[in-house]
């Protein structure tokens, strides 16, 4: 695996929530992302999984520059992506792009496909009509659409086609990294396969790096190289996809995997809630049994990540 | 401006006969209307210069003098007689002994001194102060330089001596409702604004702000046998259309009519016999500012007068609810010249005059005007095509009524359309063209003519009323000829009344002010009035 192109270090994002006092002055801080660290290598697909509210989307938005980190740094090819020397939107645009979850909300209904694709090119200094035309044509072919369809408006397309347009738009500036935000969860069953195949093809073809956000573990298993499991703003486990799916260590990861109703398992029995209270983790490094107490509502406040296998990290209670 | 039987027969065209002398009937309630706004500003009459409040003053208050519309001059009201010094400056008043305030206090000289000092009190800034200024020493008092008005001297309880600044007729000043006499024994002066106490025929009973004032018969009124009515409700009703409906619906007893309703009522057999009309002492017209170059030429000013078909506008737009003006002084003025012909409608002559003056292609000017239907923008609209025919382009400049007063008195206009008091005193009416009168006072067109000044100064000195009238008549004709204004009309005030109402009089000063103590209603009145 090549050297990382994106590095996220000790990222914290807090939101202030207005309180209910007399003047609304007291503020509660919501710790949406709490000390997340990871890196993304060229050509790699890294997935962040977790349930709603776990901070996976906030992490992605911070990388895209749509959200300011409270603490921590993000760097892209060694250059800071945050802080006072952060790149402008224009500069960032050529590095990172995004494919959205909802194909219906992600396209401007007042712009034709051509407009949606040509405007970013013009914005980034490509003004020659012939070049714009050529790039749009190539891109539409890449995502499985025909150039004739470029003059249509989004409402003339189906969900799957819209998602293809969304992918085309994300790729038109030729970014290195693409953030995939639940790229198929809003799509119909029969379309999902096509989009997943397309994304995997494009990754190979254009040697893209994906940062995928998903709660659908079967899609994650299918697409990812590495997986990051988040729970209440913290990474509880990370590792290669085999490690996560074959030997999940953290109880939360196990619970997530167990909860997936699977056609093969026929009827999987969800774990008894009581068994969650105490889980004993074999730890090779310390040679002792470490007690991990995954709280149902909060991860333990005193905790740290330990490496239990090569590049396989698990959060344990450090008490 | 009070009372008394009238006729001014020439003016009361088609007026219904008011039966008097016999058949008077006691009791009942009169529903009177206050048409000038939708509230009474205050019940403290000394504080208000407005006709609206005068409608109440007429019921509750009395002043030293009152207006006699028969003789067309002020007469004594609260004094039984007066002695005038030979130089005409000092008047000694022998006050009525039977005049009693509503709070039971009999009228004494103290009350008059108290009232005049209150009106002139600089802290109050009452509008009536300028009337008190005719008394010697009043200006010093108003300016705060003297604790007393030196011209006011109490001789005894019922005798008062007043020294005036000159040999003037003080009646014009001291008959105003802003110079009404209040009792001197009321401790809390602010209560005048809510519970007025006066000498008038009716006692204040209730005020529903924004709605009405109710007054009740005063048993100890100083005039024997008066008043006839038990109650008067003076209801506020500013909107013409509403007043029309209410009047036809017999909810109110009198209604002041606008031009349109005048015409309608004249055509309505059920209403036409109960209209009371009078020529009022206001002159309406467009004042021309000599600051605008064309207006410096007398021929141009005359041309404007010739170019406008004034009688047609009066007839069609004002529905004859006005008298075409011949000059400045109105019909009812003692100095009015019946023989002087008005400007004829003669566009050809107007055109010729303009050419002569060097404006063959006309010119353009602005008329500042308020929305008033009888002397406002609609009139400008009517003259617009007429002046267009002689080449003059008129541009209406509409402003609010308040702003009109502001702009005219600060000489900020090319021309203005307004209604200006031109009586009852012809001398003060003609003062408006005296070159020494400030522009802001009343010489709005900055008129200056040595010939006029000579005539006016002579009239000022003249003590014989008829000779004075002759001088003023001459001066008036001079002004007409010079045409600093387009002379438009003198107002005709019209009041409709219900058939059961008797005793109304056509007062040339203000028709809406009626002698309440002489009004009575007969038995055909509906039950609600009994």
């Amino acid at each position, binding site marked *: 695996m090549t050297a990382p192109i994106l590095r996220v270090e000790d990222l914290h994002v807090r939101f202030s929530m207005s309180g209910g006092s007399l003047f609304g002055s007291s503020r509660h801080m919501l710790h949406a992302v709490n000390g997340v660290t990871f890196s993304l290598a060229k050509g790699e697909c890294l997935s962040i999984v977790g349930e709603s509210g776990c901070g996976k989307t906030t992490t992605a938005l911070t990388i895209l520059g749509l959200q300011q980190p409270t603490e921590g740094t993000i760097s892209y090819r060694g250059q800071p992506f945050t802080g006072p020397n952060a790149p402008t939107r224009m500069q960032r645009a050529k590095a990172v792009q995004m494919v959205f979850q909802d194909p219906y909300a992600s396209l401007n209904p007042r712009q034709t496909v051509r407009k949606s694709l040509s405007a*970013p090119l013009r914005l980034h200094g490509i003004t020659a009509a012939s070049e714009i035309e050529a790039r749009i044509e190539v891109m539409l072919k890449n995502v499985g659409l025909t150039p004739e369809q470029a003059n249509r408006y989004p409402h003339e397309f189906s969900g799957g086609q819209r998602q293809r347009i969304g992918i085309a738009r994300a790729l038109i500036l030729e970014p290195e990294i693409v953030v995939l935000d639940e790229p198929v969860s809003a799509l119909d069953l029969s379309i999902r396969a096509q989009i997943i195949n397309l994304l995997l093809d494009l990754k190979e073809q254009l040697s893209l790096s994906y940062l995928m956000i998903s709660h659908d573990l079967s899609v994650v298993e299918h697409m990812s190289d590495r997986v990051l499991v988040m729970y209440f703003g913290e990474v509880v486990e990370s590792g290669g996809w085999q490690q996560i799916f074959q030997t999940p260590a953290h109880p939360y990861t196990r619970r997530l995997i167990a909860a997936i109703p699977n056609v093969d398992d026929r009827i999987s029995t969800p774990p008894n809630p009581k068994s969650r209270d105490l889980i004993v983790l074999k730890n090779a490094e310390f040679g002792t049994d470490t007690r991990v107490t995954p709280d149902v509502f909060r991860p333990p406040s005193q905790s740290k990540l330990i490496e239990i296998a090569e590049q396989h990290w698990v959060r344990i209670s450090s008490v | 401006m009070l009372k008394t039987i009238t006729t001014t027969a020439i003016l009361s065209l088609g007026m219904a006969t008011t039966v008097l002398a016999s058949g008077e009937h006691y009791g009942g309630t009169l529903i009177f209307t206050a048409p000038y706004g939708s509230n009474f500003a205050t019940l403290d009459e000394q504080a208000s210069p407005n006709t609206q409040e005068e409608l109440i003053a007429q019921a509750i208050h009395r002043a030293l003098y009152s207006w006699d519309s028969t003789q067309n001059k002020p007469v004594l009201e609260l004094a039984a007689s007066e002695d005038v010094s030979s130089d005409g400056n000092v008047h000694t008043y022998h006050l009525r002994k039977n005049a009693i305030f509503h709070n039971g206090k009999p009228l004494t000289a103290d009350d008059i001194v108290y009232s005049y000092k209150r009106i002139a009190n600089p802290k109050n800034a009452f509008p009536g102060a300028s009337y008190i200024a005719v008394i010697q020493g009043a200006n010093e008092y108003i300016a705060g330089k003297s604790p007393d008005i030196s011209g006011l001297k109490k001789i005894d309880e019922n005798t008062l001596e007043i020294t005036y600044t000159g040999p003037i007729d003080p009646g014009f000043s001291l008959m105003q409702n802003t110079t009404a006499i209040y009792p001197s024994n009321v401790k809390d002066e602010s209560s005048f604004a809510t519970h007025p106490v006066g000498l008038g025929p009716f006692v204040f009973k209730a005020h529903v702000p924004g709605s009405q004032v109710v007054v009740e018969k005063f048993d100890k009124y100083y005039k024997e046998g008066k008043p006839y009515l038990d109650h008067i409700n003076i209801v506020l009703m500013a909107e013409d259309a509403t007043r029309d409906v209410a009047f036809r619906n017999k909810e109110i007893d009198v209604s002041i009519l606008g031009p349109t309703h005048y015409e309608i009522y004249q055509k309505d057999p059920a209403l036409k016999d109960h209209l009371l009309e009078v020529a009022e002492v206001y002159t309406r017209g467009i004042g021309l500012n000599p600051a605008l170059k064309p207006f410096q030429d007398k021929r141009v000013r005359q041309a404007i007068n010739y170019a406008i078909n004034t009688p047609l506008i009066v007839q069609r737009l004002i529905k004859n609810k006005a008298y075409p003006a011949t000059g400045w002084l109105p019909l009812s003025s003692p100095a009015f010249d019946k023989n002087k012909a008005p400007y004829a409608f003669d566009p050809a002559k107007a055109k010729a005059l303009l050419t002569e003056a060097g404006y063959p292609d006309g010119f353009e000017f602005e008329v500042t005007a308020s929305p008033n239907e009888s002397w406002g923008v609609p009139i400008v609209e009517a003259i617009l095509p007429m002046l267009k025919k002689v080449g003059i382009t008129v541009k209406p400049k509409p402003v609010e009524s308040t702003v009109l007063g502001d702009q005219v008195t600060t000489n900020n206009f090319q021309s203005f359309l307004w209604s200006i008091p031109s009586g009852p005193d012809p001398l003060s009416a003609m003062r408006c063209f005296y070159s020494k009168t400030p522009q802001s006072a009343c010489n709005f067109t900055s008129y200056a003519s040595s010939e006029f000044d000579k005539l006016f100064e002579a009239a000022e000195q003249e003590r014989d009323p008829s000779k004075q009238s002759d001088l003023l008549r001459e001066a008036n004709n001079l002004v007409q000829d010079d045409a600093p204004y387009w002379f438009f009309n003198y107002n005709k005030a019209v009041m409709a009344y219900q058939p059961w109402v008797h005793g109304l009089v056509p007062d040339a000063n203000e028709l809406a002010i009626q002698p309440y103590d002489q009004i009575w209603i007969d038995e055909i009145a509906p039950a609600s009035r009994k």
Partner: protein
Amino acid sequence: MRFGFNFWLGATLTALVIFAGILAPWIAPFDPVFNADLMNSELPPDATFWFGTDAQGRDVLTRTLYGAQISLTVGIVSQLINSLIGVTLGMTGGYWGGWWDDLVSGLTNVMLAIPSLIFALAVLAVLGPGLPSLLIALGLTNWSWTCRVARSSTLSLKSQGYVQAAKILGYGDMRIMFTQILPNMMGPILVMATLGMGSAVLSEAALSFIGLGIQPPSPSWGSMLTDARQLIQLAPWIAVFPGLAIFLTVLGFNLLGDGLRDSLDPHMRTRKP
């Protein structure tokens, strides 16, 4: 988009008014101001004067046709000012948030609390009566509703994928507002503006009634109606035609606005007083 019966009725009425206004100089039989002839005043409708004549002897038909120009000007220009202020403040407030948004919201609340008729009255008192003043007065009064709609639309559009995408693609804030947000909230804004045109025409009539509307000799329906209210028994036609014109025009704008709203978003609620 499917439009209902109401929409088409409204569109027809509005189209009629627009045609009347545009074509007035050609189809009106007389001059609206200078054909005044007091000899002809208050004539009932006849072959020459189809709608009769007014107190000044002017043709009511002519003035009613020209009146459409004024009413349309009042409606359209005041709503343009309105929308411009409302959209600018609402969109920037909603987009940027923070103190600017607090300021915009605060100002909006103040403007909502001061009744529009009274505010217009105050502005007219300052500027003096007349068409330009009226346009400014009406333009300054009702933007708070537009502002609210623009702000809430912006807030919801801001989180839409394509707006986020535009940011990620490097668009500047201004460009995003103009190319991504503005075109997509034109629907509700248009509805507000259309309904606002109706109420502007009515406000003009109301202000004429207090004496602050369009001033003569301009043939505005509001002032025609106000002048004619005295004459309703004597010469009802002077009042009937401008009255009818106001009614049909406002009805047209309202139905058009309602119809637009129903087809744009059946659940968008009317809150404008």
